[in-house]
């Protein structure tokens, strides 16, 4: 039983891996960026757990910048993905321009809130 479940897990992982390598490169770049942003947010949460939440506004600002930019990157990925029927009429340049503008507003807000 154990051997079969571990073999199943390995098979599952291999099939996921092969499916993922079929995705286009630009989507993989977006995924990498999202992972980087979430990772940065997790580091900040771990730091706050250690030293306490003293300048709470700075903590929120830092976490929001990471999570906000991750969310915007996910939106970009949805809009740019060719397999997505919902957005097939939307030009990918328009999606990218939205992404850039929203990020600019996000970073303006967090610098203001950073103190």
């Amino acid at each position: 039983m154990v051997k079969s479940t571990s073999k199943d897990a390995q098979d599952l992982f291999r099939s996921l891996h092969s499916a993922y390598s079929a995705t286009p490169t630009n989507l993989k770049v977006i995924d990498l960026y999202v992972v980087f942003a979430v990772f940065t947010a997790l580091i900040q949460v771990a730091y706050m757990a250690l030293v306490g939440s003293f300048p709470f506004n700075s903590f929120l600002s830092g976490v929001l910048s990471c999570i906000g930019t991750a969310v915007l990157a996910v939106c970009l990925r949805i809009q740019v993905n060719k397999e997505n029927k919902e957005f097939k009429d939307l030009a990918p340049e328009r999606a990218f321009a939205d992404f850039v503008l929203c990020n600019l507003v996000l970073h303006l807000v967090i610098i203001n809130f950073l103190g």
Partner: protein
Amino acid sequence: MMNLSRSVALISLFLLPFLSSSFSVDNPTDRRVLVLLDDLSLKSSHSTFFNTLKSRGFDLDFKSADDSKLALQRYGQYLYDGLIIFAPSTERFGGSLDSKSVADFVDSGRDLILSADTSASDLIRGIATECGVDFDEDSSAMVIDHSSFSVSDGDHTLIAADDLVKSDVILGKSKIEAPVLFRGVAHSLNPTNNLVLKVLSASPSAYSANPTSKLSSPPQLTGSAISLVSVMQARNNARVVISGSLQLFSDRLFRSGAQKSGSPDKYEKSGNEQFVTELSKWVFHERGHLKAGSLVHHRVGETDEPAIYRIKDDLEFSVEILEWSGKSWEPYVADDVQVQFYMMSPYVLKTLSTDKKGLFHTSFKVPDVYGVFQFKVEYEKLGYTTLSLSKQIPVRPYRHNEYERFIPTAYPYYGACFTTMAGFFVFSFVYLYHK
């Protein structure tokens, strides 16, 4: 002729303020002393004491206690700076003097030496009670000590006392080796009164009773509770010495040898003269009189006194204290003067360090509390005048542009925000130009 006398009168009128010399803030030693005697032969029997006073520059005015022209004040001005009452049996003073006018005299800051003796009158007892000292109610009682009497005496009423208060200010720097001879009445001090002090106490074996009659009940005043000589320093720094024996000041006991019973030490001369001389120096403000300048405070690095401090400021505080040496103001040297930074309770209490020239200084950080504070120096040392100085100063919190610009604990968050921005910039380049 008329013109000459008129001009002389006019000139003396102008000079009058300069001719009078009394004690003042700049020169606190008393000058003019009224001596009330009930028996004018005391002038000769206590001549050594009076002559030492005169040699130190005092103007002694000897008057009989029932002289009808006695007056302490004239037209609202006091005529004397000190009063010595050697009139234990006087029932009523003459002239305008009574126990109330003596109490007013002390209230005005002037000094008093009061001596009772056997058969002390109610008037003298009343004046002593005003100063916080209670004589034995039995008017025929004397202090008797069967183990601490002077060997030359027969009936154990001449006490050889050596239980002196330990104070260099009151009794002088040199130790009084020989015992002090005393024959008189006992008094006790109210234990709740913190202005009176026993200078010469009786030994634990002393008691107060009539020496000629048998004791019918245990004596009320016994042991070390009996005080032979006490002093009182009032809150306005007037000093009073109350003694239970007039013979303590007499020439006979000054010259007499002293040997305490049960002790092998025989002294050629009793300690009376040294004791009385040092005590008179203290009571007439020749010693132990302090004067303080104003409190000076400023921020570290500045010289002006600011109108308001901010929390966590560093400040320096100093005060100048001088001691009167009998002739001039000398710097006061001590290591126990303290300053409080006080608002309802002292937030900071520091001992001031001295530069040996009379300047006491310290520096500290203003506490992290805002409000209206006071610098307080409350100095009450045994035998010295009390110093009670205070200066008010407000303390404000930080203005909103006085906080630190970047908080060190938030540096990771600052770093994360800028890293994310850099990451976004790099990502958009890579996304646009990858192949």
